[in-house]
């Protein structure tokens, strides 16, 4: 089989798969909606887990009270708004704020006189995650306020030196995981659906009986699925960059690693579809297989912080390298893996291995009359 014939087959298989996908909108939509749903899920998770909404009741407007509220603002733990006592009470009962912090009327006077000041904190202790955030952040704000307002009285202070060049906000940090999850699911679903379709419809015989290399068929399927995956990828990146406002530091890396990641997980999807041979089974199985791996690959922080076993799993997971590569592309830091060369090699190696496995599994011997 000549190279020309191989290329003809790759092009033809890809074109047919694209046409079929467009004519079966249900599966095409599922391939887009599921990644978008995960994007929203992560986004909500990031927003809800990032900063707690609190109401501040200012019973005084003295300069020290103002500095205290500013210190709370600077702690990056709260989304603050001021409210009257009645409104604040209504809000905490309604669950729209986690806590009500009241700055007492004698705040400035008491501090100037060197007297103790009690700051009432009414807490909706609905779950300990939110509760502990408030319990940690209010004393932290008091300390930082005190260090600012009375520096001569605070003699112990932390001297910070940063490993990374700049801070990264919680939402921008999670945005990388959002991108990876979106691309992962889009590629996996499209790949598996495209491959399973031929078995389900019986058209795999047309492929299996043709005098063509299995590799050419596999590559054609990957290329065909890539077209629709690209649509999902653009959507996910569009939301992250334009809506959430997380700008990549290295846009070309986003493009390059985006394509590499799509190729890697399309190949995995084609393998799953070839093994499962039913589209309705391929979709949940794809999700069920990769999501645990995704969560073990450090989407919310370095995976080895989770312990020895999760760390070991993360070390062999291609998703760890995908997340690391995207962290570099978006934020410029590289923590979980040695460097971009390693990330590239792992993802490319994984793609080739999966394509080879797909070619091996793809069905001449599993397809019968």
């Amino acid at each position, binding site marked *: 089989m000549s190279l020309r014939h191989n290329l003809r087959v790759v092009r033809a298989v890809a074109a047919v798969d694209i046409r079929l996908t467009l004519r079966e909108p249900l599966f095409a939509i599922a391939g887009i909606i599921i990644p978008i749903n995960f994007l929203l899920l992560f986004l909500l998770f990031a927003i809800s887990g990032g900063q707690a909404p609190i109401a501040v009741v200012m019973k005084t407007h003295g300069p020290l009270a103002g500095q205290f509220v500013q210190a709370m603002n600077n702690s990056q733990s709260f989304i603050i708004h001021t409210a009257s006592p009645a409104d604040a009470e209504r809000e905490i009962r309604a669950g729209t704020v986690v806590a009500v912090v009241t700055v007492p009327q004698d705040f400035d006077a008491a501090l100037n006189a060197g007297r103790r000041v009690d700051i009432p904190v009414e807490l909706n202790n609905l779950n300990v995650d939110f509760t502990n955030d408030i319990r940690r952040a209010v004393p932290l704000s008091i300390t930082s306020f005190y260090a600012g307002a009375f520096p001569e009285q605070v003699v112990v202070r932390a001297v910070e030196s940063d490993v990374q060049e700049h801070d990264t906000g919680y939402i921008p940090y999670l945005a990388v995981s959002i991108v990876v999850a979106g691309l992962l699911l889009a590629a996996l679903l499209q790949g598996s659906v495209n491959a399973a379709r031929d078995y389900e419809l019986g058209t795999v015989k047309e492929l299996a009986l043709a005098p063509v290399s299995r590799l050419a068929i596999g590559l054609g399927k990957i290329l065909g699925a890539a077209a629709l995956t690209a649509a999902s990828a653009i959507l996910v990146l569009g939301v992250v960059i334009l809506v959430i406002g997380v700008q990549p530091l290295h846009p070309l890396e986003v493009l390059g690693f985006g394509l590499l990641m799509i190729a890697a997980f399309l190949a995995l999807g084609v393998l799953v579809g070839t093994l499962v041979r039913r589209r309705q089974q391929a979709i949940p199985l794809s999700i069920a297989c990769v999501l645990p791996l995704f969560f073990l690959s450090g989407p919310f922080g370095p995976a080895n912080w989770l312990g020895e076993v999760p760390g070991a799993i993360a070390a062999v997971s291609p998703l760890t390298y995908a997340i690391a590569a995207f962290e570099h592309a978006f934020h410029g830091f590289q923590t979980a893996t040695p460097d971009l060369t390693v990330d590239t090699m792992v993802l490319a190696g994984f793609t080739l291995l999966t394509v080879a496995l797909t070619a091996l599994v793809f069905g001449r011997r599993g397809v019968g*009359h």
Partner: protein
Amino acid sequence: MTETAIELTEVTKRFGSFTAIDKLSLRVERGEIFGLLGPNGSGKTTTINMISGLSRPTSGGVTVLGVDMLVDPQRIRRSLGTVPQENALYEELTAEANLRFHADLFDVPRKGIEKRITSLLELAQLDERRKSRVSTFSGGMKRRLALVRALLHEPELLYFDEPALGVDVQSRRALWDRILELKERGTTVLITTNYLEEANVLCDRLGIIDRGRLVALDSPSNLRRSFGDTVLEMRTQPVPAEDIVRKVRALPGVVSAVAADEWLKVTVEGGAAVTGKVVTAVVESTSLEEIQSREPSLDEVFQSLTGKELRE
């Protein structure tokens, strides 16, 4: 060029401890229409899978068009056209798109492809529907399109799985004509079928497989003759008793004698002399109300060889 299209030599296929094909040897000559018959589970499909390279034999050799399937399966596939039972057409694509995709897979030269598609579609009377989605076609149209597709790369050997399946009577006849035309042009055709009429009309030779073994191999007429030359069906009054059946069965030249309701069915070999003796024996024992004489059917041959009816 070898005169043999397909040669199976001592082919065995096992799935675990189950032997699907047991030392099967078979030869299909070039230019003939060969029918493979067998009840469900007989090993017919496994045999076809090995011939088309979808499955490897556990032992033995499969040679197609002079090429060893294990050595160069791609070369064989280039010369093999297949019409699977379920057509394997992309139903959401048009007829033309299906054909163009097939042309790409089989590397049919782009130059002249348009003309070839048009002429094949015209022959199959599908030219007016070339831009229609296959999902809108009737069963017969799909079957014809699948045949057109199989012929697009001008195969030397065509495998047609159940040609008449899902096809109305009128379309069936047209399909058979197309298959016979292919034979005229020198194409070897291998069919599997459960329709006796189809096997009779189309096949030069038939191979009957049962439990993974070849139990008969000959032309349809020779197979029928091997079963006996005449079937006598006699209605008696009262119904034929067991002793009459035994008496008839014991006569020389009687292949089989079976009583069913008020009919006694006797297959004989030896012409009028044997027939006369059978009738005499029946008349001596009971009242003969009606008698019919005909040639044995292929179904009877099949049933006697496999113990099953063809369409089971």
